[in-house]
């Protein structure tokens, strides 16, 4: 709760960079106001910095999926696939946005930042199993968030939900709230159609008359309920209504056409079915034109509320993306353990760092004009270039894999994917053992990759050297493990070593592996 109290101070306006910088904490309770405010700030800003907090990452994973972290040896494609898998596995709990201005007026360049920290939680607001059915957490990540004083209760109780744009379309499609319908002009009608229209007309008229009369003299409840039973009428809010079943958009159009001609005090609504198509037309009877306006306003509010729920945090992303401002991001991996007891400070650190970097790069504050094209060329050469590798080989700092890190360029043709060995603790030991096993593991000669695959395929080297069956395949197989999740979950995908690119072992043995690994 302390977060909210703080946010009141923060909402005053500009926060000067300093140790006591206050970050505005945003939850679903103050989301709407915050977005409006943020829109304005973004409009006035020169740059926007962004930082996130995830529930986990493959690099801090246990042995089970640790190999899925991005390695320096990965090609960009493999790295992307791994990043994709990570994005699909973990969730964002925090998204900090900080639009900032670099004041060009004063002689010493001063950064004015407006940090916002959005708490996110993938709550299923619409009961659609979206945005996510479940997500993975790493205790280490949660602990490091805890060290910064992250409030998990606020996050899970009041976190803002969100849907991706694709999910948004799906949600709209599946939404079951009634819509006001409009008539498209050209409704050609056949004989069957006019019969259908006549039937609706008489039914609705009848129903309307009954209700108009019953409004005047009070019936006893028995009669009312009997009438309700016979007419099939229901109540929409406090107003009487009638459902007309339809089976196509065409019928909807016909029904609406009839209803509009019939009377002014009825409002036809489309009730969408689960699949997205229309299920029924609901006819609501209003008591007066004022009442009708009230109803229309209510419906509009309902739709806005619905849209708001569907859009959720997506609004912020849209605001940022449509602003066309440069976005500054820093891989937050190193910045996490600084122990500052406040949330969302990373984004400020990024801002500060960027300002520092800018001065190092000798970019004058004057160069920062809101217009995109006017940006200094020196900065331009850095924009839109990402560093795909978040991890260094931290676990092997002992220098055993120095060879790998030192390699500048290598062809994937010369890479061999080895697996299936157990009880080998380090790269050095593996290398030693392999070299002892067969002279093909010489690593020095040309085309040794190809030769190696052949040898392993023929099963020519002494299996005794390695405790378990060693298997080998080309780089393609490795990429495949990343793309195809079915291989990804197993420590030891069983592939045939002879022709690594295509042949995949029949399933039963793969499954056998899977169950055996437990």
């Amino acid at each position, binding site marked *: 709760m302390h977060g909210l109290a703080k946010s009141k101070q923060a909402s005053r306006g500009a926060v000067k960079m300093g140790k006591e910088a206050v970050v505005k904490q945003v939850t679903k309770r103050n989301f709407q106001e915050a977005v409006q405010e943020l829109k304005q700030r973004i409009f006035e800003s020169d740059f926007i910095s962004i930082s996130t907090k995830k529930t986990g990452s493959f690099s801090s994973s246990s042995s089970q999926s640790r190999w899925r972290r991005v390695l320096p040896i990965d090609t960009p494609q493999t790295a992307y696939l791994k990043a994709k898998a990570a994005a699909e596995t973990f969730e964002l709990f925090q998204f900090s946005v900080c639009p900032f201005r670099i004041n060009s007026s004063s002689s010493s360049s001063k950064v004015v930042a407006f940090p916002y920290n959005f708490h996110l939680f993938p709550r299923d607001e619409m009961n659609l199993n979206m945005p996510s059915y479940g997500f993975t*957490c790493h*205790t280490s990540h949660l602990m490091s968030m805890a060290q910064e004083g992250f409030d998990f209760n606020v996050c899970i109780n009041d976190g803002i939900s969100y849907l991706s744009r694709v999910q948004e379309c799906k949600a709209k499609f599946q939404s079951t709230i009634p819509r006001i319908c409009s008539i498209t002009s050209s409704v050609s009608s056949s004989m069957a159609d006019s019969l259908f229209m006549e039937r609706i007309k008489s039914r609705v008229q009848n129903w309307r008359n009954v209700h108009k009369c019953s409004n005047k003299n009070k019936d006893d409840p028995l009669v009312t309920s009997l009438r309700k039973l016979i007419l099939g009428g229901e109540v929409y809010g406090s107003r009487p209504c009638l459902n007309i079943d339809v089976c196509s958009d065409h019928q909807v159009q016909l029904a609406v056409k009839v209803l509009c001609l019939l009377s002014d005090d009825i409002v036809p609504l489309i009730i969408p079915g689960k699949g997205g198509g229309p299920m029924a037309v609901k006819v609501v009877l209003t008591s007066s034109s004022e009442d009708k306006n009230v109803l229309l306003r209510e419906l509009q509010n309902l739709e806005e509320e619905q849209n708001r729920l569907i859009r959720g945090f997506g609004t912020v992303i849209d605001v940022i993306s449509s602003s066309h401002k440069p976005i500054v991001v820093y891989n937050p991996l190193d910045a996490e353990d600084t122990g500052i007891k406040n949330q969302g400070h990373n984004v400020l650190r990024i801002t500060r760092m960027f300002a520092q970097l800018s001065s190092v790069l000798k970019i004058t504050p004057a160069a920062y004009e809101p217009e995109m094209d006017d940006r200094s060329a020196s900065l331009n050469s850095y924009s839109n270039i990402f560093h795909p590798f978040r991890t260094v080989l931290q676990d092997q700092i002992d220098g055993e894999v120095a060879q790998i890190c030192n390699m500048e360029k290598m062809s994937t043709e010369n890479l061999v994917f080895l697996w299936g060995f157990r009880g080998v603790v380090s790269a050095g030991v593996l290398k030693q053992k392999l070299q002892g096993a067969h002279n093909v593991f010489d690593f020095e000669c040309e085309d040794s990759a190809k030769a190696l695959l052949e040898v392993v395929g023929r099963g020519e080297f002494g299996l005794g050297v390695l405790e378990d069956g060693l298997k080998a395949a080309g780089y393609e197989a490795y990429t495949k493990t990343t793309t195809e999740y*079915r291989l990804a979950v197993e420590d030891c995908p069983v592939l045939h070593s002879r022709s690594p690119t295509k042949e995949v072992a029949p399933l*039963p043995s793969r499954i056998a592996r899977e169950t055996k690994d437990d």
Partner: protein
Amino acid sequence: MRKQCLFRAICKTLTLRPRHLCTAAASGGGAAVKRVTRENFAAAMEELRRLVRASDFVSVDLEMTGLMSAPWREAFDFDGPDVGYLKVKDSAERFAVLQFGVCPFRWEPSKDSFIAHPHNFYIFPRKELPVDGSSYEFLCQTSSMDFLAKHQFDFNTCIYEGISYISRAQEAEVRSLYSTLEDKFRKYLCYSEEAVDGDISFSSTSDVFFTERMKIQFSEWRDWIAQSSSGENNFDRSSEDSKLKLQTDFYKMRPAVVLDGFSSHQLRLIKLVIRKHFNDLALVHTDGEISGKKKVVYTDSENDKALLMEEVLEDLRKEREAKVQSAVAFRHVVDLIASEQKLVVGHNCFLDVAHIYSKFFGPLPPTIAEFSNRVHKIFPHIIDTKHLLKTDLISQNLMKRNSKSLSSAFALICPHVASDSKITLSVPRQYVKVEVQTDEAGSNSGAKHEAGYDAFMTGCIFAQSCSQLGIDFKLHSAPANLAEHEKLQNHMNLIHTTRCGSTILNLSTDTVILDPSYSKYPKLVLKNIVVIWGFPSNLKPVELKDYMRKSFGWDSVTMICFLDKTAALVQFSKEELVAEFFKVRNSLEKSNNVVSVLHPLLKVLEGGNTRAGDYETYKRICGSRISKALFADQAEAMGIEWEVVAPETEKELNAGESGRSADEIDGEKGLESDRVSSIERILNSLMSDESRHKKRIVFRDSNGMSYVGNLIRLYSDGTCMSYPNLQGFK
């Protein structure tokens, strides 16, 4: 928070005694539950030890981060026991336990009442040791988290203050790691060449210079120490230190140099220098492995050096032991309940028991029979109150038409505990009194879906049910024999495996029985089941049934169960229809003539993504570690296409099977000997068969029982694998 403070304040004003006593009825629905976190764990544990030892039974309840990793992994009534177990196994392996409720109940003859001590432990799998367990990575089901949040679950307490735990298997792993490290350390002491872990390559000239510099510095320092200790001049550190770059310190009464500000590579070089050139110097880690400093210590003899190393080793051992104990933390509670062999009571506790096993003991075994066997060894007496209520007529009568949830059962079975009103005496039923006791500090009023309070409710239901079974607590004097009470034996160790309770697992015999009272659905015949997935998304259950009937006859389908919108289980009335189904599909795929275009099954195959398999396929998919939200995606991710069990396709499936070892035959243990002998007979006949492929075996014994779902795979090396859970049907 405020409510809790208020409650505490009231407690304080009401009682001046150190132990606060209040009957549950007086506290207005929620009984006082002791809240245990890291902070008060040690004290609470001491107390709990005493309480559990004195108790007649202990009730438990768990709160998890989720139940299912995908909607189709929900327990369906049509799942056979093996699939039911696989689903529970998947859940227990993926999700974390956040709260563990423990409530010891003790009969107090002087009060004619049970005394309950509800405890609510906040636990969190904090990583404290270098074990590589999957427990540090867990899944959260969004809806479950939301559910917990709605019931005021305190996630902050859990993550900030939750008590850690490691399983017995993890503890064994870490201990073996430590002993390996110790061995390495000893080798290092012995100066054996093998201990040198890999050659260090002097990759640059700077390394050579560094090594030389270090050699000189250490040699100067050593000489200086040797000089001063020989007594020629007193330690005149100030004058000497200015010359020396090495700062002298003391370690275990010996002069030492702190190695500060070196990179790990440099430290390795130093280590090498010391080992090569200085017999009387030793490099040691001090004060903790990670945070501690590295020091080079001077020893005046080989003996002294050995002594120093022993001292260092002893320190390390102590430190590691303390770390292990602190990491085990919450498991002490579970170990306590297990070692006391107490009667454990849970409500619908199949999943809870699976969680307890996987979190505190070790990885879950692959089959339900083995699981049952292992659990029974740890907890010899388990009562599932869900099962107890189902078999008790009075309770059934009370509960009909009401929701079967724990809290509603509690309100109905134990109204005297659940509500304020003291209507107890006006009702003819004999109520068992329950009194709640907690110390005033650190307790809060329990609410449903809080593990401690749920455990309390479960225990109350059990106590009341016992009385309804005719157990008179007033007569029963020695508390230890409640678990042995004859009237409980019919319910002992029987737990429900599915939500609606169609199957019951008997932990004493490791067998699964179908609930005889359960007749809502047609009988489950696993061999008649086909799993179909990937059909058009708008296909409705009625339509599917209709198309199947049109294709295979009006009475061909006995039941259809949709797993999700992409998959369904279809049970045919006859086993032959399963083969027929695959045959028709194959012929439809091949032929393109006009007649086949009109075939009703085509409606199911429409879109070209429809796949199907038999019950074994379904089981395999459920046993997979992958979890996709939709069943069809899951099957695709596993690369499962049409799985036909018809004999002609068997041969294709067999390549590359030899990787499977014989250890999977274990499951046969649960079989009676005559069944085993008949299996042996069949195996023998198969061994002589040249084809040596997997076969589907259906056989009948003398009683006319037929056993199904028994696939035996034979490999060229003579090993075989049998699906263990034979299910007999008349």
